[in-house]
Each structure stands twice: as structure tokens, then as C-alpha cells.
């Protein structure tokens, strides 16, 4: 593990601990929802980071199509993969909050919930699309096109939801009633940064694992060539140490 990855992992752990500590020991109780509102500091950052991750995946896909460099495809894939996992957490924490707040696990008439589910299901089709194609280059190209199209859909979807009439779900960052009090805002931003760092750290871990696995495969192929006479110059995995 590289030093930067170790440092960023430690920073993530510290910030997550600090954020959750602030949620329970510093943030005031919500006048309307009471203690149940504490889920807000987990659920909303997860949702924002998941959606941002989908857009980042699209941005890497653009770079992949422009340069043809497989590292951008790997970054796009891992960004989307991590955001899908975060999306699962968003749906589960949201359902728990909905049950506590509204008495129901899910509300089909609420545009915010349904639109997030649509985005989540859309990205869930990324895996079968990707792995249905055997040719690696074609697979990467098609996956990139999907990531760009779906990535463009995310902000459009967000705008559409903001424009739609809310059924029961409150609008995050709504300023109609004065928005969040400063103490809650501080805690929210710490949690948002912590969850964002967690996403970034996990993406880095995933990419590092993929890179190591690729290097090992190259090494295995090179060693499987057989003993033969000693050769001069670099023979094993010429690109293994790059990036």
C-alpha cells in the first residue's frame, strides 16, 4: 500500500469518527423530527456522493474515449461500482428513515425516491452490459458510452426532481424556511467530506487491487514462458511499474 493511500485511509477514518461524533454529541435535535433526523447526516451525504460518483465515472469514460487509455476505463468502472454500493446504502438508510418518519418503507408517488431508484437501476444494468461483451476493447468502449450517457442523465434527473412538486420528501438545501441552522450545517459538511473521502479511498483501494492483479497476471505469463537461457534487459511486464 502506498504512503498516500495509507494517509488518506487514516484521514478518512478520523473524519468519519469526527463526523459521527459530531452527529450525536454536537448537532442539535431537530425541532420537527427529533432524534430520527440524525439519519440525515448519513443518508444525504451518501446520496450526494453516490450521484457525484456516477458523474465522475462519466468524466473518466470521456477521457477513455478520447485517449483510449485503459486506466480511464478502469477508473470509470470502479467509480460506478463504488457508487452502486453507496446507492444500496442510500436506499436502505432512506427506507429506514421513511419508515420512522412517514410510517412506510417506500412511497411510489414521491419523485425524489423514484428518481433515485431509476438511476440506481440504470447503473445496475452497467454490469451485465459490460460483461456481456467478450472483446476487452469493445467492452471498454461500450461501457464508456454507457457511463457518459447515464452520467449525463444524473444531473438532468436531479433538475427534473427539483422542478417537480414534492410529495413528502423534503428538498435538501431548500432555503424557503431558512435552510439548516449553522451547527447542523457544520456537522453536515463534515459528514459530506468524510463520506466523500471514504468513496475516494475505496476507489483507490479497488484500483490498487486491480493494478496488482494485472501485474501478477503479466508476471505469471512471463514466468510460464519456461526457463530458457538468461535474457538481458527488461523482460517481465514492461508496463507493470507504471502508474
Amino acid at each position, binding site marked *: 500500500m502506498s504512503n498516500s493511500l495509507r494517509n488518506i485511509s487514516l484521514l478518512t477514518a478520523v473524519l468519519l469518527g469526527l463526523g459521527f461524533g459530531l452527529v450525536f454529541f454536537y448537532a442539535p435535535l431537530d425541532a420537527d423530527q427529533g*432524534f430520527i433526523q440524525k439519519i440525515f447526516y448519513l443518508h444525504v451525504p451518501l446520496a450526494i456522493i453516490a450521484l457525484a460518483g456516477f458523474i465522475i465515472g462519466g468524466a473518466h469514460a470521456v477521457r477513455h474515449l478520447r485517449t483510449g487509455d485503459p486506466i480511464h476505463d478502469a477508473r470509470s468502472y470502479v467509480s460506478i461500482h463504488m457508487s452502486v454500493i453507496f446507492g444500496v446504502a442510500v436506499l436502505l438508510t432512506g427506507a429506514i428513515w421513511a419508515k420512522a418518519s412517514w410510517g412506510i418503507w417506500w412511497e411510489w408517488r414521491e419523485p425524489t425516491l423514484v428518481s433515485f431508484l431509476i438511476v440506481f437501476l440504470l447503473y445496475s444494468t452497467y454490469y451485465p452490459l459490460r460483461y456481456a461483451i467478450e472483446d476487452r476493447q469493445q467492452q471498454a468502449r461500450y461501457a464508456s458510452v454507457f457511463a457518459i450517457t447515464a452520467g449525463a442523465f444524473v444531473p438532468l434527473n436531479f433538475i427534473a426532481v427539483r422542478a417537480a412538486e414534492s410529495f413528502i420528501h423534503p428538498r435538501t438545501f431548500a432555503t424557503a424556511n431558512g435552510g439548516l441552522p449553522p451547527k447542523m450545517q457544520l456537522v453536515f459538511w463534515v459528514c459530506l467530506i468524510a463520506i466523500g473521502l471514504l468513496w475516494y479511498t475505496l476507489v483507490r483501494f479497488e484500483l490498487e487491487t486491480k493494478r496488482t492483479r494485472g501485474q501478477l497476471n503479466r508476471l505469471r505469463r512471463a*514466468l510460464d514462458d519456461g526457463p530458457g537461457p538468461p535474457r538481458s534487459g527488461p523482460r517481465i511486464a514492461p508496463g507493470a511499474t507504471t502508474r
Partner: protein
Amino acid sequence: MPALPLDEAGQYVAAAYLVFVVLLIVYVAIMAVRIGHISREVESLADLAERRERERQAVGQAQAADSVGGDEKRSSDEATA
């Protein structure tokens, strides 16, 4: 709906944070398994590399012995002549 009493609300809040922690632990466990596979793969590659090196040395020694044997035979032939 009115705000839930603290004991009931606490259960929901705990459940939400628990879901997050469990997902994180599952992910870390999957990563640990994958790193374990990579570690075993590294060990097997190290063994393979050592074996290859020994084979290469054995081939080199055999070639050297052949060339020494050939030189001795050549010089004894010359002496006889």
C-alpha cells in the same frame, strides 16, 4: 407524523448507521479475501521464479561441464597425435 419518542427513534437511527457499518465491513471482508488471493498468488509466483532460476543454473552448469569435458578430450587427442 409527530416525532418518535427517543427510545423508538434510537432503534431506527441505530439500524441506519448499522446498515452503513455492515456494508463497510462486508466490503472490507471481500477486499481482505481478494488480497489474500493476491498474496497466495505472489507466493506461488515466487516459488515458480525460484524453480526457474534453479533450472536455469542447472542448465548453465551442465553446459559448462560439457564445454570443459570437450576441451579436455580435445587436448588429450592432440597429445596422442
